[in-house]
């Protein structure tokens, strides 16, 4: 899909917010794709992390928010220990999640989880998923 890039299309506020929340410089990434190659959840992502970073570099906020990548990321840090440019990608993913969550939008609804699931799950699974996927 061809996209047009101009100073008008770059969402600078998004970029500033992303870098402030994550503490990462997305322009450090040189698009090697090691992150996606290391990602255990990659096949379930609509776009691999490399592409998300590229879109972030271009300030494509709306397009990034439409993709499921940040919600499928399990913050396992495989990409983080392998990134040759030292980009802490799980922090970038967390920042993208927070931009949605902090507007009071949940990715999962705790009240809608089946009782059986809640009963069998270890507490750490519940706490961790609510921490990462709810506002």
């Amino acid at each position: 899909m061809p996209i047009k890039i101009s100073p008008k299309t770059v969402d600078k506020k998004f970029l500033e917010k992303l870098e402030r929340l994550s503490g990462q410089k997305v322009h450090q990434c040189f698009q090697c794709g090691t992150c996606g190659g290391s990602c255990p959840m990659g096949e379930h992502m609509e776009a691999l992390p490399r592409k998300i970073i590229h879109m972030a570099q271009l300030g494509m906020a709306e397009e990034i928010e439409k993709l499921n990548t940040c919600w499928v990321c399990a913050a396992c840090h495989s990409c983080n220990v392998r990134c040759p440019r030292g980009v802490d990608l799980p922090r970038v993913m967390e920042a993208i999640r927070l931009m949605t969550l902090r507007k009071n939008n949940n990715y999962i609804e705790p009240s809608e989880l089946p009782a059986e699931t809640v009963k069998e799950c270890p507490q750490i699974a519940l706490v961790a998923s609510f921490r990462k996927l709810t506002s």
Partner: protein
Amino acid sequence: MKVSYYPGCTLKTKAKNLDDAAVASMAALGIELEELPRWNCCGAVHSLADDDLIHQVAPVRDLIRVKEQGRDKVLTLCSMCYNSLARANLLMRDDEEKRETINLFMDEEMDYAGEVEVVHFLNFLKDEIGWDKLRDQVKVPLNGLKVAPYYGCTLQRPRDVAIEPPGRFELMTQFLEALGATAVHFPAADLCCGSYQILGNPDAAKDAAATILEWAEKAGAEALVLSCPLCEFNLGKKQGALFEEEKIMKMIPTFYITQLLAIALGLNPQVCHFELNDQASVLLLKSKGYPIEFERDAA
């Protein structure tokens, strides 16, 4: 010797088989694990946003409890607890500005600056007891048991809290060898089990878990050993579902590190709470001739 011990919520309920086996094994090795008074949730996951300090408060409070005891070390077992406590500790030690904000916010607590060391069970065994001494204490060598050491994410990542450098699996290997078992290396030892995504994106989590189990089986392992109740849930408790959905072709038992330790030390199998494991796990140990009494209704 007494050591401060942070069990965490899951070890007190659904992962008693990790907790009780640890306390009993350590006692047999001459170490008294003293549960931290008034411990609270570790937060389970580390907050990754630069401006989010409120979620650091819980793990820091736990570390303050250790400091209050006059101890300089806290032992943890659950990989997620280890990871979130160790990372909060580094933040308090290395980031002056955030440290001051958090200390000021928790004005009722004593100030904290990362004085306590967060130690994982495996490192404690290696450094404070040593593999040779452990080997000498083994009463029931786990000869002939081929086990894949599974680390998952949180024991090795990020690098600054890794129990050993990412990509090296010597701790568990040496642990297993000290118990008389054979460590079977497989390429998925540090792959993510799907973690908390079992709730948010169950299909993705199941595929991640299936990959790990497949690799372990292909490498010739008879069992998987791990130290995290969430890994155990995704790889152990949910394994039957993976098999039914044909995501894996063969089942493979899972154990906590402390269960194998307790058995090798010749302790009463009751401390292992095998009723919380899959029956295949117990059958495997029985088939090897280890003294395991198993009553499913004992719980």
